């Protein structure tokens, strides 16, 4: 299951929020060696986490966060449009039907099958979230391996400019726009196996708060 955490729910789900920032630190700072400006050595958090963003967290049966991503309406401040675009020399499209996806990561300690399952859960939830908000396109900066997953699922991917390697990084990162095939509006979900219902929204299911709210961090 993937739980949607809005800005106003961050306190109520402080345990999951704490875990997601720890997971991001393990992946982006410790593993990928990203040079990120802020942090306490345990959590990865930036100024865009306090903006108008939504967090998706995939949790296992024990309430442990296994994957996460950050989704931000493109008209709100976001890391791709307001920071990375300048560094990469590109301009991202912005509009009411466009959302930015960033900080997507999966627990690196999972085995390959578990990673694939967690990623699938996250992707299905993301597709459902986009459909709910009427977002037709996603923007972001991603590695090739992430973009290939999108292409494999039938999305059209446009590259906005030359890729760059961030300091300390081994892989090129691409500024990209992804959209579903307008002729097959349900194509991506069909590819993903139509496992709809991955997105769990506390506003629709208050029991999520009882099960996962304010839980001690794993």
């Amino acid at each position, binding site marked *: 299951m993937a739980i949607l955490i809005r800005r106003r729910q961050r306190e109520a789900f402080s345990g999951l929020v704490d875990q997601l920032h720890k997971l991001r630190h393990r992946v982006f700072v410790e593993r990928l060696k990203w040079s990120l400006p802020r942090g306490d050595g345990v959590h990865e958090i930036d100024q865009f986490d306090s903006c108008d963003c939504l967090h998706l967290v995939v949790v296992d049966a024990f309430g442990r966060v296994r994957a996460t991503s950050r989704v931000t309406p493109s008209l709100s401040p976001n890391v791709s449009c307001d920071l990375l675009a300048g560094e990469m020399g590109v301009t991202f499209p912005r509009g009411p039907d466009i959302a930015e996806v960033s900080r997507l990561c999966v627990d690196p300690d999972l085995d390959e099958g578990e990673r694939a399952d967690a990623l699938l859960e996250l992707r299905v939830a993301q597709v459902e979230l986009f459909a709910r908000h009427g977002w037709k396109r996603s923007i972001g900066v991603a590695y090739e391996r992430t973009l290939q997953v999108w292409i*494999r*699922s039938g999305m059209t991917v446009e590259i906005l400019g030359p890729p760059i390697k961030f300091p300390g990084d081994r892989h090129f990162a691409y500024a990209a726009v992804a959209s579903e095939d307008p002729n097959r509006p349900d194509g991506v979900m069909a590819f993903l196996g139509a496992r709809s219902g991955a997105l769990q929204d506390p506003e629709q299911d208050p029991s999520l708060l009882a099960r996962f709210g304010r839980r001690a961090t794993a």
Partner: protein
Amino acid sequence: MDRTAHALALIGELTSAPTVSKAVAVFERAIEPFGVRLYRTGVVANPQRGLIEAAIVSNWSEEWAQLYRGRRAFTFDPVVAAARRGEGFFWRDLEPSARPEGRELMRDAREIGMVDGFTVVRAPPGELKTTVNMAGDGLDWSELEQGTVSFVASALMSRMLHLRDVQLKPAVQALSLREAEILSHAAAGHADRAIAQALSLSYETVHFYWKSIRRKLGAADRANAVAVGLWSGQIDP
């Protein structure tokens, strides 16, 4: 526009191509400025052994393909061996450490225009391992250009596999549990006698099942059946 920008600008067109042939046409436009003249794309159904490879699209000459198969060159081709390990490499980097028959094969390849080559290998979690071999003369690329060519080649594979999914899923018939078991063993590289032993069947019964598997999947041979079985999701990679 330099060749990197040109290729990346074509990614949108490639990833929205409605057919395999249109995707391939965009791919050719993207890689032509990099000096690539010949290419062969495939999926590896058995990454451990690397032997069961089904080509998806290729413009290699049939003469070379026949020569290659006739010599069973995949057993000593340095490119095949390197593809088991690497993600992207130039063929010229393999030659110094290749066995004599491998060096001879590379010399023969040069004579038909494959002066140098670059191979891209991708194995995403839960997905088929794919290879794209590209050859030409004077493949002299910067790191950025290698990344770009790799991206374009992988995007072609991702798009083609998606299109194959779309086209094949309704077209093939569902295998029975026993047929899927046999096909899974074949995908793992097991010979029919080993499959028969593993499933407590006679060798003749396994042969009988193969006829049914090939008919249901519309497959011409064993490797094709494995590839279609994988693409149609009836056996796991």
